[in-house]
């Protein structure tokens, strides 16, 4: 079970490896991130009892957003240590080859 920045790093890696995730979310007004020392992991906020993962989804979506969120949750669960994991889709990123 990871904690603090390690958990944030693991969550970020797990989220980015999930199909349908383009990048980590940067928030709108405040950047969600976890800091420790000189290190910063964007898009993940680790709390004592919860874990918030902000993502930017790839568009067109390869599968419904709840499924993407569930996959992320499953990947993160072993490291999360029972924390309630919340997935927030901050934005959609249109793929370069799509003429949308």
């Amino acid at each position: 079970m990871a904690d603090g920045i390690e958990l944030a790093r693991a969550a970020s890696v797990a989220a980015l490896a999930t199909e349908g995730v383009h990048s980590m979310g940067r928030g709108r007004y405040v950047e969600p991130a976890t800091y420790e020392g000189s290190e910063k992991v964007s898009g993940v906020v680790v709390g004592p009892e919860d874990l918030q993962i902000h993502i930017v989804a790839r568009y067109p979506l390869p599968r419904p957003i709840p499924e993407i969120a569930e996959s992320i949750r499953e990947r993160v669960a072993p490291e999360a240590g029972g924390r309630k994991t919340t997935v927030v889709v901050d934005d959609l990123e249109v793929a370069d080859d799509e003429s949308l």
Partner: protein
Amino acid sequence: MRVFNRVFMILLLAGLFVLGVYMIVYAFDLFGSKLASLPITDFGKGVENFVAGAENGSLSAKTIIILILLAILGLIWFIAELKPTAPRRVRMGSGTYVTRTVVEDEVSTVAEQVPDVLGSSVDVKARRSPGAQVDLEARVRRGEDLNTIKSGLKSTVQEHLSEKGLPVSKLNVKLVEADPRQTKTRVQ
């Protein structure tokens, strides 16, 4: 409401601060200012008369109406304060949220793929319960069958959003007849 309260409290506290400074200056006779020289005698008498009138039950109808209006205003303000603020993000299920712009982009993209729609504007409101309230305004040519377009557009948007897993608790579609020269797309 939060912004209004903040502005109100700033003005109130600023006013109290200014009054406090004046009170100290006049109470301690600083800078040649004396409490007795303040023109508050008439004001004090007015307050006295008002309180006496309220005790005797002899207030004028105009005063009673103003007091009732103030009480109603206070009640409305109190109820508005009790009402919780709308969440910023759209709740999808347990532990999954999307920002309103994501839903807006998705609805707008789908709406503008419908052949009769020349342009659209979307407003999404998040709710405390899962799902968003979507207000979609679509611009169409004059003389089209609005009812058919409206129902088609509504079902297309609902179908697409449910495919993507974006829950919509209420979808309001409004069609506006527009000049194609002034819309985003002239021909679909």
